[in-house]
């Protein structure tokens, strides 16, 4: 038997979500159909609202309802220290540790030629501008220890080091191949503490 068209469409849309296979997409679609209208409207509206209200902070490229974001405007943050992360979810992982008091810069990904992502596709120019303008104490590269994370750190170090600022990377505790998002708070906190200067 074939699905009726609107159902097929819904399953297809769910299947585009990360980590959702055909079976799960089908389960999700039937779940939605079994809810009352009110509940379904809530779901649909929260998707639309999140998309409409959340924007990119023009300073750090984090996502927030405000521009500049809460972290960038906070007077209790040390804006002489910048922590460079790949995605907003990594920023959240670091914030959860409550250990870090500086500000951030979100690259929007990692260098990965197979995915068509080169340095120009990331907010590297903006980072370079920030670093050369401001009187910074330290730039922390907090990227995954994957092949792409390592490559991006090597690249950033290469273009940032002529500016003569202190550049560090996360220290011990993070085994090779770790995605920051999946590391627990204690591990990230230790890696922050044990960060070392890139030479």
């Amino acid at each position, binding site marked *: 038997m074939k699905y009726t068209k609107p159902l097929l469409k819904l399953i297809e849309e769910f299947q585009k979500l990360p980590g959702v296979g055909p*079976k799960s997409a089908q389960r999700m679609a039937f779940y939605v159909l079994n809810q009352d209208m009110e509940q379904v409207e809530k779901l649909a509206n929260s998707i639309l609202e999140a998309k409409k209200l959340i924007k990119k902070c023009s300073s750090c490229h984090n996502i927030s309802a405000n521009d500049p974001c809460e972290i960038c405007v906070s007077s209790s943050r040390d804006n002489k220290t910048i922590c460079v992360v790949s995605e907003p979810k990594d920023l959240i992982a670091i914030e959860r540790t409550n250990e870090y008091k500086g500000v951030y810069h979100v690259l929007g990904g990692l260098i990965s030629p197979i995915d068509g992502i080169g340095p120009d596709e990331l907010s590297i120019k903006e980072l370079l501008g920030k670093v050369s303008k401001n009187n910074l104490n330290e730039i922390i590269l907090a990227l995954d220890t994957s092949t*792409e994370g390592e*490559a991006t750190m090597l690249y950033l170090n290469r273009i940032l080091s002529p500016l003569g600022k202190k550049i560090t990377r996360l220290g011990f505790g993070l085994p090779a191949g770790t995605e920051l998002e999946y590391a627990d708070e204690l591990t990230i906190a230790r890696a922050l503490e044990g960060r070392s200067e890139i030479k």
Partner: protein
Amino acid sequence: MLLKRLKLTNFRNIEHFEEDFNTLKIIILGQNAQGKSNILEAVNILAKSSSDRALRDNELINFNKEFALINSDIKTSDDDIEISLQINTTGRRKLKINGVSKKAPQADLIGNFFTVMFAADDLYLIKGSPSLRRKWLDSNLTQLSKIYHNHFATYQKSITQKNALLKSAFESGMSRKSLQEQLSIWNKQIIEYGAEILLQRVDYVNKIESFAKQFLNDMSSGNETLQLNYFSKIFSDTPYVPDVEKIKAMFEDSINNSFDEELARGQALVGPHRDDVLIQINDKEARAFASQGQQRSIILSLKLAELKAVEILKNEVPVLLLDDVFAELDESRQNFLLHNLPEGIQTFITTTHISDLQHDLLENALVLKVEKGKIVKKPVTSGF
């Protein structure tokens, strides 16, 4: 070591299979494409993490199912281990060892269980392309060393990225300076990990050579001499030295010298992913000169050497997987194989005809018959 129990769920065409193995010899009978090799493949994956027969994990999963499961009980010389590996369509695996979930399903699988796989296709190892010989080295080194596995995975990723970059540079007309800047971040990792891979490969080839040489000598009553040499473009000007820093320096020179050619061809041309093992018999290149019989003798020597390498390096007798090879080996080679196996070795044998097997192989053997992915026990006396 012994595989005491195997349970397969949705693994290729086998929807369900469960068996306790209380014997040292397990014979799996079946016509072609019925699924008998799939059982051996599953056992091999427990040791080497990947399969020579599958490019992607998806191929291992029964059609239209979300995952395949390999459950096993293993007895090592001093421990009992329960391994449960779930292979998912999403590409992320799940691994439990003794009931505990592991964070790194690929790396944590390695080092618990060891196999030597001898399949009919291995006969191409001598005359086939260099990629077959590299695969042979890589799958054996993977089961022997978690570190090798990690280095190899990172190396492969860096090569894939470098190739993509070279290709896009070619298409987009990126400036030479910008390309070199971006290439350097991949080359740095390629050299770092590639040098370690080289070092481990050369060391392994030397070990295998010394064992295999002896086996071939015995098999041929001293008439045939085997030589194995690891070949890499990196050492074309300067000879190999087992020093990782020196290898890195030579590797870097070699990559720098190949820049123009790599750019023109749009791919990485130097490194372990392009190397080879040169096999010589009586000072002649086996690839060009070995007879059919000599090829079989060489392979048999290499397989026995693989076995010995596991025994010596890991202090365990690996499980031997013989996939459709008896039809390829004459009686004297069959005898040589059987007489040179260590005592207490557990052997899984697939065959289309039970008549291809010698009588002593059937003694105390468990015989299973596979038909369209369904497996039934068979009394050993039938089939004669």
